[in-house]
């Protein structure tokens, strides 16, 4: 009897103290302090490094002036090569984005509007290149287009279709930026009100005219967001570019190679320029997105009617799907084919020592150990980054979602996107700069610094979907809970959090995947640590392709599993 009475007592006590704690936490002063901490962490991890970089550039302008513009031997060669690399990056990003739009928009339309067998599979296929680490993707694309193992087999050539260089960079960037455009408008197209299109038709507009005049204006903002994302991802990518670029150097690759050569002031200056350019792009888009009208208002009824004919639309759809498979899907996954080709030996000479089995498991350097160590490091980092990010991103997302002051809200909302658009190598560099020996001198390159860099650039991936989740939860429940006497934190725990579950899981998977696949920032902050995407680049540079293929395949499998999980979680959310 006594024991039986004790137990509920304890439980009641626990609950009371929990409620009391929550009540204390809900005090206005404590809440304000919490908000301050949330913003503080954001500043320390995301804004701080960038601001510090700016600050350093200003105070050590003399140094920079000397090394960048007036080197005693090289003169302004450093500055010129910066300009060249930035120019190249822009050219590539522009071409890639145009391709993404031309193929990605019809693809989004197909996925949103048509019902066909295997639609879900195609949908997953389109998303896959986004989840696969870019170094694995770049390697796979190099194998497909750039070696005699891939496409050139079809016409019996001894050399690849394209050698390392600009064309190959474009092909690689197309593969991993492609999903951004499709993804960002697919949902919007699916949600468009079909009745508006019916209204358009009864008024005499052909389907093309309707798409142009009625649907496109509604998709405009999503399309712009996706385009900016694709553009900045191409502009800032390191992993795949390192593999396919050869002697050509895009700006992020230059950062990595200068960093390796410890040319700190010049690297700082280039990172700074890249960050400024990306920020200007982001700002321009956020300010003008709503205001910019569509470039063409004029209607050419006859011509547009022709464009709406079954023949034209079918050709267009076929082309989009064909281009997707040829330029995105098949090259992206070709590494798996390559792995089997080289499984037990060289497909050309039959030599066992050239095969994957020997190189990975039997050779004296035991690459399997390296791979496993790197894999564990990557998983550890990704896990820590995900947990930390959920903890710091949830209050931020809640704060932004509930904020009443529109100006501050808009500002914070924009700042959140910064890590999304600036090249991760530049962000990684500014973290190295602030936390390392040039700044606070708390950390040296290694595990902890990689973690901080990853938290920084995955921050947006975590906050963004959570803001969406919070926005979709009606405040009505909060108010109802408050009416029953729940403190704010208690209301959050009992009422809001359950709604948030799938949003949190989705954010976690996104963060995890993104951390797993990063190359650029990792290289800068890693010291002697190796993550698996970086190891892959090492293998590639050492020309041990079968080992690289083995590592790539592991990465692809992991990302594939993550993607399937993500789809399951988000689908369940839709059903609920």
């Amino acid at each position, binding site marked *: 009897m006594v024991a039986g009475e004790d137990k509920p007592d304890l439980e009641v006590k626990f609950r009371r103290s929990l409620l009391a704690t929550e009540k204390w936490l809900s005090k206005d002063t404590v809440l304000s302090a919490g908000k301050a901490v949330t913003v503080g962490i954001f500043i320390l991890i995301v804004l701080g490094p960038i601001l510090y970089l700016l600050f350093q550039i200003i105070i050590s302008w003399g140094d920079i002036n000397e090394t960048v513009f007036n080197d005693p031997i090289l003169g302004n060669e450093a500055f010129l090569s910066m300009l060249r690399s930035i120019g190249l990056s822009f050219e590539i990003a522009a071409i890639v984005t145009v391709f993404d739009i031309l193929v990605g928009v019809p693809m989004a339309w197909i996925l949103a509007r048509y019902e066909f067998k295997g639609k879900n599979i195609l949908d997953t296929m389109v998303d896959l290149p986004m989840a696969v680490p870019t170094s694995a993707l770049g390697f796979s694309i190099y194998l497909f287009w750039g070696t005699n193992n891939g496409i050139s087999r079809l016409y019996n050539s001894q050399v690849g279709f394209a050698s390392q260089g600009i064309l190959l960079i474009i092909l690689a960037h197309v593969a991993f930026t492609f999903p951004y455009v499709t993804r960002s408008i697919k949902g919007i197209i699916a949600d468009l009100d079909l009745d*508006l299109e019916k*209204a358009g*038709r009864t*008024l005499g507009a052909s389907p093309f005219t309707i798409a142009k*005049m009625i649907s496109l204006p509604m998709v405009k903002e999503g399309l712009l967001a996706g385009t900016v994302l694709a553009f900045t991802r191409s502009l800032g990518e390191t992993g795949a570019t390192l593999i396919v670029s050869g002697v050509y150097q895009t700006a992020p690759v230059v950062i990595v190679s200068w960093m390796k050569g410890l040319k700190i002031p010049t690297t700082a200056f280039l990172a700074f320029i890249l960050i400024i350019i990306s920020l200007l792009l982001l700002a321009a888009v956020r300010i003008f997105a709503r205001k910019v009208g569509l470039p063409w208002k004029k209607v050419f009824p006859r011509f547009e009617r022709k464009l709406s004919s079954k023949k034209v639309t079918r050709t267009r759809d076929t082309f989009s799907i064909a281009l997707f498979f040829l330029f995105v899907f098949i090259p992206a996954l070709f590494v798996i084919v390559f792995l089997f080709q080289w499984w037990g030996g060289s497909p050309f000479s039959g030599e066992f020592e050239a095969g994957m089995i020997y190189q990975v498991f039997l050779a004296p350097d035991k690459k399997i150990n390296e791979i496993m160590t790197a894999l564990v490091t990557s998983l550890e980092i990704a896990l820590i980054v995900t947990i930390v990010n959920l903890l710091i991103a949830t209050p931020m997302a809640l704060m932004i979602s509930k904020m009443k002051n529109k100006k501050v809200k808009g500002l914070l909302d924009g700042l959140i996107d910064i890590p999304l658009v600036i090249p991760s190598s530049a962000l990684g560099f500014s973290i190295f700069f602030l936390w390392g020996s040039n700044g606070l001198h708390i950390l040296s390159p290694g595990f902890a610094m990689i973690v901080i860099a990853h938290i920084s650039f995955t921050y947006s991936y975590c906050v963004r979907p959570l803001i969406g989740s919070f926005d979709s939860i009606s405040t009505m429940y909060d108010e109802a809970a408050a009416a029953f006497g729940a403190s704010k934190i208690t209301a959050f725990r009992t009422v809001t959090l359950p709604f948030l579950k799938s949003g949190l899981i989705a954010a976690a998977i996104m963060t995890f995947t993104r951390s797993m696949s990063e190359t650029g920032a990792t290289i800068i902050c890693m010291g002697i640590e190796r993550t698996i995407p970086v190891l892959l680049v090492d293998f590639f540079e050492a020309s041990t392709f079968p080992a690289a293929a083995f590592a790539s395949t592991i990465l692809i499998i992991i990302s594939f599993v993550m993607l399937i999980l993500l789809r399951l979680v988000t689908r369940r959310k839709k059903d609920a």
Partner: protein
Amino acid sequence: MVKLELKNITKYYGKRRGVENINLTIEDGEYLAVLGSTGAGKTTTMYLVAGLLSPSEGRILFNGEDVTNVPSEDRNVGFVFEEYNLFPRMSAESNVLFGPIVKGLDLSDSRQVAREMFSLLNITGKEGNFPDEISGGQKQRVALARAIVSNANLLVMDDPLRALDAKIREILQIELRNLVKDLSLTCIHATHDTQEAMRVADKIAVFKDGAIVQLGTPEEVYNNPVSIYVAKFLGETTELKGTIKQEKNKSFLIVDNIKIEIETDLKSGTKAVALIPAELADIYSISEKGKITYDNIIEAEIISSKCVGEFFDVDLIAFKQVIKAKELIGRNVPLTEGSKVLFATDKGDFRVFPFEEDENDEKEI
């Protein structure tokens, strides 16, 4: 400008029936209302006429010309949707000019027409407003202008006033009819509301389960509903069941040994149902006895009455059952509960149908 014919039109959605074997002719300049409850096939019919759906079978003719396979954008039909479907990112004027723009018409003419439409529909001044800045009634006026300005000669409206509140609805019903008649458009207007159909149309087609059950002028449909279903759909009624008796050129329905004079061709001994519309069930005070001339006058007791605006909803007991009546407000009749009154009907007030067991299913409308 257009004579519209539907010939044997059938539309199935997979296995579900949309409409079956619809035959309908709407003369040039005629205003037809399609009346029916949800699921009767109204929207399907409207979409078929506009080309937003294609029929499984049958043909659609405009002025004798087969347009069955002509796509919607080439039919020149002005369509007004239940939910307005104004383009959200365009101003009211851009919405109205959308048709002329995409058809490549001369815009200066169209602007002129649009201006006239705006003033005809009392929405002048709203040209620059976006759809989310104007009221429901104004939205539907803009939608109407949009449908007409694009040179439509056939106006198709799918329950256009459903989403509006009662007062605006009544105003727009009158505006609509005047506009259509002024412009001498051919018009087909679907509605679930009997009053609306009666107010706007030259002819009414009553739909049930995807088929036309009655077609006629409002008076014909009201006075001679072809089935219990139609009679009940037209308004509140009370059902009296009994047996027909023909006697000296007069027809009676015997209910519980009480003789009610009615009009019918049914033979003596037939089981029948007589429906009395609530608005035709008249009530007088007892003191009027002998002063009024009706075919049937009977004493009745009021069991409840409720003022619902311009009239009272009254329940009274007569012929040993509850009868629903509507009494205009302001008449000198004691409508308090329990008071005795005279319940008066003419033989023509009853809609008489042979009694069939399965007709009971149709009570829920």
